[in-house]
């Protein structure tokens, strides 16, 4: 079951690569949140109840609902255009993301230890690098935040792999998630949206040498 969920998660990454609209991005992120809820539920069923509840609530409420809604709110508030405006063509993006997933796969294959569940590792790494890729190739500042959220999701997947042994790390990871999302999105909604007219990263290139 977990495998199926994680594979769907990976497919959502590929879909992300060819998505054009901001709204699609938001949907994918929400969808990933829901997927992670399922993974966490199955994976962490053995840990103590309060912890489990906290983790599950966090994934379903924050990841799947609150953050996507908040992003939606920001888009509406700041009149951000709907296009994601990538620097590279979507076709190329799909190729790259596929390469990333394949690379992660090969890397995981290189691991000799048998006790590690490779699927987690593959998904996490793909998610991490896809997130980084999104950040690098998209033009809007908000897409950077979303790329960061993808990375967070990947990290969450990875933390789930060890979660049953060290639930503390999952909690820390979630803390990070909340912290950073709140801060980044908060600044975004509050400051950048007001100060900069265009929501383009080109606006943020004044500090350079």
């Amino acid at each position, binding site marked *: 079951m977990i495998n199926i969920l994680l594979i769907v998660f990976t497919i959502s990454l590929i879909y992300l690569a060819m998505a054009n609209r901001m709204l699609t991005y938001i949907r994918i992120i929400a969808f990933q949140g829901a997927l992670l809820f399922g993974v966490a539920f199955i994976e962490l069923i053995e840990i103590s109840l309060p912890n489990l509840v906290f983790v599950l609530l966090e994934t379903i409420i924050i990841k799947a609902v609150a953050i996507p809604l908040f992003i939606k709110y920001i888009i509406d508030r700041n009149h951000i255009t709907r296009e994601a405006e990538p620097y590279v063509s979507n076709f190329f993006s799909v190729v790259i993301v596929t390469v990333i997933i394949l690379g992660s796969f090969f*890397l995981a294959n*290189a691991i000799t230890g048998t006790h590690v569940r490779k699927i987690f590792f593959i998904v996490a790494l793909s998610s991490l*690098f896809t997130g*980084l890729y999104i*950040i*690098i*190739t998209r033009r809007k500042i908000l897409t*950077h935040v979303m790329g960061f959220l993808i990375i967070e999701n990947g990290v969450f997947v990875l933390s789930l792999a060890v979660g049953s042994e060290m639930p503390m790390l999952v909690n820390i990871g979630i803390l990070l998630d909340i912290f950073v999302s709140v801060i980044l999105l908060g600044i975004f909604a509050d400051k950048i949206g007001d100060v900069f007219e265009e929501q383009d*990263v080109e606006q*943020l*290139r*004044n*500090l*350079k*040498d």
Partner: protein
Amino acid sequence: MSVAFLISTLLFILLISLVHPGKKGMVAVAGIIVNSVMSSWIAVAALSGNAFSQVLNGGPVFGDIAIRLDSISAWFILVTNFTMLMGILYGRQYLRHHPARSADMSMHYISYLLNHAALTGIYFIQNMLAFLCAWEIMAITAFILVIFEHARMETLKAGINYLIQSHISIILLTLGFIWVYTSTGSFDFEAIRTYCLSAGKEAALLLFLVFFVGFGIKAGFVPFHTWLPHAHPAAPSHVSGIMSGILIKAGIYGILRLLLLMPENHLAMGYFILAVSVITGLYGVILAIVQHNIKKLLAYHSIENIGIIGIGMGIGTIGVGLGSPFMAFAGYAGAMLHVLNHALFKSLLFYSAGNVYNALHTLVIDRMGGLIRNMPRTALFFLIASLAICGLPPFNGFISEFLIYSGLLSAIGSSHTASVIILAVIALALIGGLALLCFTKAFGIIFLGTARHVQHAEIREENNATLFPMALTAILIIFIGLLPQLFISVLRRPVELFMNMPDLEGMRVSAQIMQQISIAVWGLVLLIAILWLLRKAIASRQVTVGPTWGCAYTTDSPKLQYTASSFVRSYAKIIKPLTITKKSKDEVLGIIPKPLHTETHFHDKLESGLVDWPTRNLRGFLGRFKFLQNGSVQFYVLYGVVFIAISIAVPLIINAVRNLAHILKHL
């Protein structure tokens, strides 16, 4: 003693910053005197055989700091003390013409005092780390001294150029010291000897090269000389004087100290030094002649004289290698005496140039002329120093050059590499001839004839307080020239150190020759005096004064005079391949042309090749990476990704290639 020295230095620094601006100079003079007396006291004792030695506890970092003063250091200390004292006496007066703020003055005098202290430290300290500290303090304070007139961009540029090059020197010294320290675990200079004995000849020679370049930058050996012609004109005259007279000699001291510590490879080192020095001497004087800026001209002459000193050191080292006491003595004694001599006449030349600058506010030779009538004493001093620097009897330059010649000539007789040595002889002869050309030009154009340019203010001779240190220096120049045998006996002990045994033979022969030279020189002076008296007796008193013979052109026009450029024109044509000549010339236009203006500048080819070109390229290369911090967050993230990806991928790829190679091998 060391503690007393430090305390007095600190005390005077404090005093300088506190007293009234007018008194700062006096305090600095007092400080130099006090410090000089302290160090000279020990130095004189060391020269008479009681070497000074002390060990200070330098804490965990430095370890034991060995303070030792053997006769070589003592000689350098005495030379330094005299020159520095004259320098401050002159400088105090020189700075009257340059109204500066109290803070500038304080900084200048404090730097001067510190510079003297650091130089003293260099000669005393035989602990590598402490030596480096003293060395750098010397460089930094010299830098501050150079940029006294810091409002001008060129001055600052020259100063920074100097600072960077001396930093490169420090880096090389550091490298050498690290080398020795890693192998021996000791910071003491003696560790160099230990290392060389244990490491084998090739390693020792390589170590020597590293040190030589490090010290050579400071000394100004070609091709490491490029900072000199910029720093000297930029500095105030007394600073140029002490820099040229003393600071660059610290490099010579370093090389001498090194030669003392290197137990092997004498022949290889000797020939190397000789070769570099021959090039240095020739290159320096060849470029000196075409300079139009008096101080730049003198700076190139410093390079030349370093070459002469180097020839002496080289021949001395070869002498040690061949086991020829006379050669070794003549070489080293010549080199060390020339250190003193050059300090004397070069500082005197710079002081005279300083007087001229204060009178005319220009350093360009072609704008001067006829100053001998307004400034007869300055002119006389310049003349004496010029004669001395050309190595003409009866002045001191001749004595040291003669010693070096004797060393070379005896080398011709006794070694199997006469053809190499004869090149050095030719070089030395050429250097003499070229120096003559250069200083007839300098003296003739600056002081003789009539003014080549309208001089606005009335030109007056400097006051006696300014002339006093110059006079003292001049007297010493003549004194050495007339009584060289005294100095030979002083130099016996320092030179003996190189030969590891009391050498009476070389010393006795040299002393005899010096005795003869003294007689000959007195004869020359006497002859001139007699003929002069005869002139008074015989020559008719009937004297007519008229204009200069102008080929029937009777109106005297200063513009018709020979200028510095025209004086060396045919020479400049000969040496054209060695320099980069930049000419700016106006075209003759119209029926009645406007006044025309032509300028010619000679640039140092080595500098543009060895300094400018690499610097430019390095800058260009580094400039290509300016895209790194381009303000785009995406790129910043990318760096991390690339770093991680490469760190993972490269070992994998290497592994894969290795495996492939393995498979291919099996096939």
